[in-house]
């Protein structure tokens, strides 16, 4: 009886440890290579809105950009 209860206690602890480990590994991103980490960092990094605002001012007095010649010819769009 005592043996059984000890066993179930150990099983419970093992299950709990397993669950904690699983939760931790789910919450802990791991990156195999530097570029994966950089990719993740890039996604978290916002582009300051000030850049677009400055660009808008800078381009306001300029003539609208001409499309590339091949695009005018083919009707394609640069990607």
């Amino acid at each position, binding site marked *: 009886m005592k043996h059984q209860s000890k066993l179930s206690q150990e099983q419970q602890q093992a299950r709990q440890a397993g669950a904690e480990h699983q939760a931790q590994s789910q919450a802990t991103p*791991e990156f195999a290579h530097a*570029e994966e980490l*950089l990719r993740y960092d890039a996604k978290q*990094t*916002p582009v300051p809105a000030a850049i677009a605002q400055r660009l808008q001012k800078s381009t306001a007095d300029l003539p609208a950009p001409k499309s590339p010649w*091949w695009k005018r010819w083919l009707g394609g769009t640069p990607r």
Partner: protein
Amino acid sequence: MVQSAVKTLMNEPPTESAPATPAPADLGSEEFSRLYAENSRAIYYLALRYLSDPQKAEDATHDVFLKAFRKLDQFRGEASFRTWLYRIAINHCQNLRQAWHDRHVFSNADEALWENAAAQTDSPLRILEIKELGERIQQALDGLSDEYRLLLLLVADEELTYEQVGALVGQSPDAVRGKLHRARKAFAVLFNQNA
């Protein structure tokens, strides 16, 4: 080896990302506004991590897109638009680095960025985590040679192939692969030193 060397502990899984770059209402043409929305994050991130200074990265991104705006008709369509932009950005950033290489002073690189980011995040804990991660990444990148830093930043862009990265850095795809291996190792060592 490098696997598991580059690990970072965060309390949230990497599901969220910064909001997409809003397309400005009018950047001279609808087409250019779309090109900005699609490519500004990539160019800003390259400038930020290559120059290690948020204000200079902001200026550089502005200048790169302004140059692209003026020269859009010269874009020959032989490469993707992003590759063309990267070429402008790399030249611009390398010129900047060259100019202040000898008189480089320490700048608390990420401070301005985190101050800007604070308003866009939910919890103080998350801000702290992102800040720590960004600082560690920047410190590790700062410890690399210019060549390795640029290589890692370009390879991190999933839209670029090794061939395209090679063309941008003036190397063959095989040389890119070889150098990338060494750059990864160097980065992992530096990144873990700052843990």
